């Protein structure tokens, strides 16, 4: 759905606004590196603008921090309506290495809705361009969740159908009875 929307709404170009809410500047440097003639994202019409009012896309770097959460939210609200948010780097995607610090609230998802994630610490300029190209529909995404499951044998003690719950709260109901 987002792909179609992107192709309709942002057919010509994306103007990006680059919001750092407390990162270490590593991702900033990589984003600016993507704008240099070597990588040259202006091929796709991507342009860096200074104000969120001119922007279609917000590139969030750094975790949501206590001191900058309000400012980030105001910057998001100032953007005109068809807007996308990219979380760049592991801080913006999941809170970073200092996720449990007192001043870090967590990923930027807590403050603004995020549409695309580009993990990496910092992501390479190529990785950022790839993430933007996924959003533009130029390439297909490569990542798939990987699950490894053991073989189910004819007389198992463990029946997968007896598992209840989701995520970390999986309970095996018959564990006591066996």
């Amino acid at each position, binding site marked *: 759905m987002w792909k179609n929307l992107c192709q309709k709404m942002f057919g010509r170009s994306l103007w990006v606004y680059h919001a750092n809410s407390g990162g270490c500047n590593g991702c900033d440097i990589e984003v600016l590196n993507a704008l240099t003639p070597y990588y040259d994202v202006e091929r796709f019409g991507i342009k860096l603008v200074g104000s969120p009012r001119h922007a279609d896309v917000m590139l969030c770097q750094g975790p949501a921090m206590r001191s900058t959460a309000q400012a980030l939210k105001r910057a998001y609200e100032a953007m005109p309506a068809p807007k996308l948010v990219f979380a760049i780097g592991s801080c913006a995607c*999941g809170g970073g290495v200092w996720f449990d610090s007192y001043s870090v609230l967590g990923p930027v998802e807590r403050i603004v809705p995020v549409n695309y994630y*580009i993990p990496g610490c910092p992501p390479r300029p190529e990785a950022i361009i790839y993430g933007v190209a996924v959003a533009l529909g130029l390439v297909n995404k490569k*990542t798939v*969740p990987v*699950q490894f499951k053991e073989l189910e044998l004819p007389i198992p003690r463990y029946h997968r159908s007896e598992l209840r719950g989701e995520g970390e709260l999986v309970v095996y109901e018959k*564990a006591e009875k066996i």
Partner: protein
Amino acid sequence: MSLLSKLAETLICLKTERATLPYPAEAKPVPEKFRGRPIFDASKCIGCAGCANNCPAREILVYDVCQEIRIIKYLGLRCTYCGRCADVCPEKAITMSHEFENGTDKIGDIQQRLELFMSTCQRCGRCFKEPSVLEQLKMKGYRFDDLQNERWIFRSQARLEGDAVVDDLKIEMD
């Protein structure tokens, strides 16, 4: 003189090739020691959870569903690709791949989940993974003790409680 130098400069400019990398169309190979997404190999993993203990971002979770099943989950949200998990892994089950094109629209796409059958040490009660397939077949999970009635027989009720040293002796006597 200045005109000549300008002409020379023009020649140099004409000779130079295109500087821009046409990235999504063709990629440049990554450096030799580049660390990308860690890849978990379930066939080598013994479930020791050393990676989970050493992860600075606490991104690898280990939890036991029941006595025999251990689940190792790599979330990848705030992974900094430091490669400590690959360094500490005794079986080299984790390799840092060269994959860096991880941009997605769902954060769950980076996740990896391993389900491991673990057997229990009769002495200490800790889980370990049987090294070979034949030894895995000896596990309780694969067969019944009492084939006629299709149930398991628990031979020992020994528990470690109270005076650990004394009870240890009792178990040895059993």
